[in-house]
């Protein structure tokens, strides 16, 4: 049986125990004994005990068997192949699994077939083992729980305890996700830094992650891969600056107008429209940037006699700015609304106009929140991927001119990791190092935003 039908079988057993347990306790109640809990809690207890351990075991087995098989399959690889220069575990495993799945590309050496045959054997064994262990665990655990049922058994407390474990387990997933992210990024980054010195990565001025020794296109010479990430960060910075110089004024002034001036009707009409901008998927913005905005900017620039790259930072930044407008405006709107009306009334009472009130009273009071909103917007811009992949191009130019083509950290990550890749090469590993720095930067920005709000927040009440 495959894992899915096994899970269904376990659930069937579990619902069987639920009915049995409920009926048994109902009958006990009918025969005059006083139950501690309501009858269905007895059923639930039996059902949960039958289901949960078996499902957990099934999940572990289903995920774990492949990992074990792969390490076992590597024993079949002859030593002379292992000693060879081009030996890559990933490739060898792909060869073997292809044969297992009946896909044959050309002639495979005998040991691949041996390994594949053995793999099929393990697969059959593991399926039988999985079926037997899960089903018997479910049946036995259910039976054990069922035998516990008697009027004095505090089944509600037991069920609630189980439920509490499930709830706590769910909330632990957030931790596991973080651990997973750290694990996947940090280890690969460490391997990368073993190949490329940290100083070259952080301070190098050229980014050219071609495969080591590969010929550089057109130059006719053996190129050396260089992993200086400065052009990428400068590109990211440039595009973010363009984006923010669109988003911050537009977003902030919209928020001020909506919260201070607009009538409720205008507000009710305009706010959802602005938020529509936030709901548009980034791939749509990317398409818009690449097909509409970039040619327009290039055309305008050309007619003004400027030299504009077809994938200019300006186009990507402008569109990214549009994307961030609602982010800035709704966050600032919240902050402005949180400034107590009494402050405004006091300013009006002293004779200031509405704009003087906003500039000299409301904005200073809301400043920490606004700064935090802008920092969050920066972290959005830095982490944004699709717009830059589609509109900013791949040329790792070190330039601060928004009319040039630049590339960003995220677009390099995507370009390097999309498609098949060898986990061993420095090029692939460099993407993980980039991801690590990206995470550090965005988290630092968020942390700063939080600290600013915490430190400078005024308590008015």
């Amino acid at each position: 049986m495959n894992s899915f039908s096994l899970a269904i079988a376990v659930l069937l057993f579990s619902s069987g125990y639920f009915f049995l347990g409920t009926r048994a306790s109902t009958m006990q109640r009918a025969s005059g004994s006083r139950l501690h809990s309501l009858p269905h809690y007895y059923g639930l207890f039996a059902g949960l005990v039958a289901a949960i351990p078996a499902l957990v075991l099934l999940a572990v087995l289903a995920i774990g068997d492949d990992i074990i098989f792969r390490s076992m399959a590597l024993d079949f690889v002859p030593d002379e192949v292992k000693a060879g220069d081009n030996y890559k575990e990933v490739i060898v495993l792909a060869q073997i699994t292809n044969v297992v799945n009946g896909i044959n590309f050309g002639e495979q050496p005998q040991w691949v077939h041996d390994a594949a045959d053995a793999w099929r054997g393990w697969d059959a064994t593991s399926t039988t083992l999985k079926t037997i262990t899960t089903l018997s665990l479910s049946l036995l655990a259910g039976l054990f729980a069922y035998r516990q049922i008697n009027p004095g058994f505090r089944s509600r407390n037991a069920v609630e305890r189980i439920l509490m474990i499930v709830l706590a387990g769910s909330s632990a997933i957030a931790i596991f996700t973080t651990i997973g992210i750290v694990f996947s990024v940090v280890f690969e980054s460490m391997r990368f830094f073993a190949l490329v010195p940290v100083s070259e990565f952080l301070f190098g001025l050229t980014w050219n992650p071609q495969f080591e020794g590969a010929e550089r296109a057109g130059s006719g010479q053996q190129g050396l891969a260089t992993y200086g990430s400065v052009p990428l960060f400068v590109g990211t910075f440039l595009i973010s600056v363009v984006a923010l110089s669109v988003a911050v004024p537009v977003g902030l002034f919209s928020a001020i107008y909506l919260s201070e001036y607009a009538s409720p009707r205008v507000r009710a009409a305009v706010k959802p429209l602005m938020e529509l901008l936030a709901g548009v998927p980034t791939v749509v913005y990317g398409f818009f940037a690449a097909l509409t905005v970039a040619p327009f900017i290039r055309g305008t620039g050309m007619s003004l006699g400027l030299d504009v790259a077809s994938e200019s930072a300006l186009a990507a930044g402008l569109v990214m700015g549009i994307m961030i407008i609602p982010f800035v405006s709704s966050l600032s709107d919240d902050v402005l609304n949180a400034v107590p009306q009494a402050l405004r009334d006091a300013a009006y009472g002293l004779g200031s106009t509405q704009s003087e009130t906003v500039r000299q009273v409301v904005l200073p009071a809301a400043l920490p929140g606004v700064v935090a909103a802008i920092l969050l917007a920066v972290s959005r811009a830095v982490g944004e991927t699709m717009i830059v992949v589609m509109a900013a191009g791949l040329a790792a130019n070190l330039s601060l001119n928004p009319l040039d083509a630049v590339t960003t950290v995220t677009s390099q990550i995507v370009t390097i990791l999309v498609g098949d890749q060898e986990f061993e090469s420095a090029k692939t590993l460099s993407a993980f190092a980039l991801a690590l720095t990206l995470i550090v930067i965005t988290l630092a920005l968020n942390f700063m935003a939080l600290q600013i709000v915490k430190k400078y927040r005024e308590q008015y009440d």
Partner: protein
Amino acid sequence: MTETGMNNIGVDKAGGGMISPQEAAARVGAGLAARRACEKRFRAYGRIAIGIALAFLVTLFVSIFSKGIPGFFQHYVTLDVTLDSARLDPTGDLSVQSLYDGDARGVIRAALYDATGASGRSGRKAAGKIISAGAEQRLRNAVLDNPAILDTTQRMTFAVDDDVDSFLRGFIKRETPEKDRRINDRMIGYIDALQEQGLISFEFSDYLIFGSASRNAEMAGIYGALIGSLLTLAVCLVLSFPIGVATAIYLEEFAPKNRITEIIEININNLAAVPSVVFGILGLAIFIGIFGMPRSIPLIGGVVLALMTLPTIIISSRAAIRAVPPSIRDAALGVGASRVQTMLHHVVPLAMPGMLTGTIIGMAQALGETAPLLMIGMVAFIVDVPGSVTDPGTVLPVQIFMWADFAERMFVLKTSAAIMVLLAFLILMNAAAIFVRKKLERRW
């Protein structure tokens, strides 16, 4: 004391004593015009900012819709096809294999030569280029659906090739020198002939909705990607909704105030801030790299998107639970319910609309997400429609991303049309979220 400036209103410059009310009014009045102008300017800045934002919105939608609406249609040619069973079904058993061995292409071409009057080697070659490569498949399917049409003459409609479509739409100009355009004069002659007979029609593109990935622009459609999106979202929902709600319940109601709880809360906030592309790296390194799962499958896509949307769902569910007044809990506890019963029977049902709103918004986010799915290989060119969560597939935003790379004019139109479909789904989901919030959520 300074002599000028608004700060000194009411203070006599000479001696520091009070000035007369008339004097004060005059001084305020002197600055009033400038302050009014300033006020007006400030107000105008706000209006301009909103105007700019809305103008961006309009430009975005106009630019997508102006290309997308024509993208829902394409040109078809209607031909009288003589369905000779000997040519179409050489084995005579109507099996798929037999139809593939048969000469569907020849049958269609014959009808095309009749309609255009094409003759000679180069003439026939030119005429043959008018019709889409997908025409044969359409003919075979028609025969499979209804074998009775064999050995009759049927009026059948086939898509035209995308270059011809571009010509008919006017993107390829007649005036362009022949060597610079992808359609030669002979083909234009035949197209004119077909048009004179009224055989060319501009219809709703069934390929767009029911077709799958194809390198031929006229045959490309979003069906496979839509199904892939649906499967991915289903996996995402099945995982993220229960886990998100369970986490929210635990953190709001049961978690002890200790170090571990604090770490979990910090973690959730951090995950909300992590760029989406990083979740793709997580999927690539853990699920594909370590667990050895295959690439390109909706199952992994759904898991990755679930991890990504979890913070959204948890945060909004917690807000919903917090909004349920303590009096409800006290009342339930007062009549003897346990804490878990209070939670499950009273607090969760009342908080459900808020939780659902958050979940729908999270799902809308997941539906539009592209970058993490690129990382786990859902960007492969897959013609087959995925039948289950473990079949390779792609999703709508990734399909849009892939099509956006193709230069053919028709792909631009179809990409915009696909974007309109995606936007329609997103708007629908957000409308559902607003509906749930407005209709079901209780204000206390």
